[in-house]
């Protein structure tokens, strides 16, 4: 029998394991990777975490709710392309302008969120209303939405995004670009929603045991539907940010981000079985992945190693998850 103090310490460490991993990795890279230890690199890591990070929020919510959403990457790409087509002035951009000019910012954001929400809504209709498997439905969305990106762009790119939008990608606050602050703000808001509101608690309950949640009077279908729409809308936001970062959109924008988002979610401690996981952990997972990407960039290692390391990291995270259960039992 362990003392309550020992148990509390063990629980704290286990609950925040990914943050400890992040700290260890950052210290190791700072010591051994040339040019790593500097403010600019840490700012880059935070900035580069923006897109996968925001995408991972929606993905994590759906997974915590016990489902799956493979469409977030393509949804982000579609939102980016729509933003690019409407508000870029070169390539296939239509160069839409609004008066006053700052209106471009809220209008484009609203459009991107709406594009994402529509895809999330469709995923919800097929999964919740028609009872189809979420994996298959969102896999189909992953394919057809990317196809739609190619179709509406004709494979061409849009560039030269409106300066009213680009300002978010260029201006900095405390060495960190505004887009990264938006991602951090998203994590604060959604962490609050998931941890402190009935919606978040109910979604977690549904993921743990949907039948029990239903019997407890929770509107399972309604909340699940909302979770899919949120995932879509947040992916739309990720796409909007991506368009701002790259000052436009190409048909392959965001390719490969789904894998990183999944890796971050798993490393961040979200159980793929549903019902378990916290968003701050997911953000730590995203930061960890970005740190590794950056270190590999600085070391000049062939990028193939990134994939190997990421894969091993996911495996290690799952192993740690199993170990956590055993350690918890020992301290119980």
């Amino acid at each position, binding site marked *: 029998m362990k003392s309550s103090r020992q148990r509390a310490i063990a629980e704290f460490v286990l609950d925040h394991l990914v943050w400890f991993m992040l700290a260890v990795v950052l210290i190791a890279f700072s010591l051994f990777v*040339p*040019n*790593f230890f*500097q403010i*600019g*690199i840490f700012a*880059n890591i935070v*900035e*580069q975490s923006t*897109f996968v990070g925001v995408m991972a929020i929606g993905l994590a919510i759906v997974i915590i709710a016990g489902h799956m959403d493979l469409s977030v990457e393509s949804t982000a790409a579609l939102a980016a392309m729509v933003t690019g087509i409407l508000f870029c002035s*070169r*390539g296939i951009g239509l160069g839409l302008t609004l008066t006053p000019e700052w209106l471009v910012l809220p209008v484009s954001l609203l459009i991107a969120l709406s594009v994402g929400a529509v895809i999330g809504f469709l995923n919800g209709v*097929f999964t919740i*209303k*028609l*009872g*189809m498997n979420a994996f298959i439905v969102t896999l189909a969305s992953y394919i057809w939405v990317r196809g739609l990106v*190619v179709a509406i762009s*004709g*494979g*061409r*790119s849009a*560039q*030269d995004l409106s300066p009213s939008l*680009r300002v978010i*990608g*260029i201006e900095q606050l405390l060495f960190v*670009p505004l887009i990264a602050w938006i991602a951090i703000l998203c994590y604060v808001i959604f962490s609050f929603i998931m941890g402190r509101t009935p919606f978040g608690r109910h979604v977690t309950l549904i993921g743990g045991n949907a039948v029990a949640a239903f019997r407890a009077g929770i509107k399972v279908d309604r909340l699940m539907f909302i979770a899919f729409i949120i995932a879509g809308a947040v992916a739309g936001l990720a796409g909007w940010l*991506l368009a701002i*970062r*790259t*000052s*436009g959109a*190409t*048909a*392959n*924008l*965001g*390719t*490969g981000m789904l894998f990183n988002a999944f890796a971050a979610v798993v490393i961040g401690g979200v159980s793929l079985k549903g019902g378990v996981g916290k968003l701050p952990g997911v953000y730590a997972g995203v930061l960890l992945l970005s740190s590794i*990407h*950056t270190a590999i*960039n*600085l070391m*000049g290692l*062939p*990028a*193939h190693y*990134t994939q190997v390391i990421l894969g091993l990291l996911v495996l290690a995270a799952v192993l740690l998850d199993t170990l956590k259960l055993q350690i918890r039992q020992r301290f119980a």
Partner: protein
Amino acid sequence: MNRIRRLLTASIAIAAVGIVSPAFAQSKGKIFYMVPTLLDEFQTESVAAITKFMGDVGYEVVTLNADNKTDLQQSQMNDTILQKPAAIVLAAVDFNALAPSIEKARAAGIPVMIFDRQITSTPSDLTSVAGTIEIGQVAAGEIQRLLKEKNGAVKGKILQVLGDPADPYTLDIQKGFEDKMKEFPDAQIITLPAMQWEASNAGTIVSDQMVANPDIDLIFLHAAHLSVAAVAALEAKGKKPGDVMMISSNGAPVGLDLIRKGWLNVEVEQPLYAQAAALAMFADKVVNKQEIKPGNYSVLGLDSVLTTESWGPNIKIPGAAITKENVDEPRFWGNLKAPADKIMPVE
């Protein structure tokens, strides 16, 4: 019951959206164009160019997109062979992996023309290329010039951003470039790949490297669309046009725009229109299995050399370095002004 009805309705609606019924006109026959991907502007425009030029000489073009997947392109080749087209135009996803498919098509009596991505491991009926290795060499020449102008000699730090490291196209450009740079040991080259040719990956590389190596003189990106993200990353670091020299390759419209804005110094063009036009000029000879004579040919005004190589007739069309001085010339495909004149078959 309601659920089943809804499922049926949804299935019918989806099927209706997916059905496409193309209308075909009469022609000398169908030529299948196996495009490796439609996710970049060069390939997208190549579809338009090949369709137009082959149409000029009487062929109808059907395009199949392999989505950068070798296995998918192999399957498409198998399916196409069964349809017995007049010819196949292949821009291979993987230069070597498609060799057996080419052999299979030719054994079935279907001529195969190679577009843009040269395959030397097996014979084909005509190859029309600018040469990916040559693109790297042209870029190296331009980079040597720029470094000399800036530093007084070919010395300095170059960041080379490849495309996807699994794509032989980018590896060939790298080879051509690095071979030519070997004789200049004072030019340090940092090479990193943008996985899956994804633009934000290139932006990330530039962003990190500008912090770790702020003395980078020049950035060489293997595709114009990567330059856009690189420029955005430079802008975010407070850089202005001209602060860091930049070169990219393929000559896409985005690259030409960046030259006009002063960000890009040089864009090494792949002469897309001429490469496509050359195929159309010789299409009748290829389809009718007539001899293609080596020699000098003018393809859309570009002096091109046709040679007989171990892999068959090979027409090489020179790529050009696009700079601020010549960026507006309509001959560059990045200006998207496809030649209106009809292509005439070679007699």
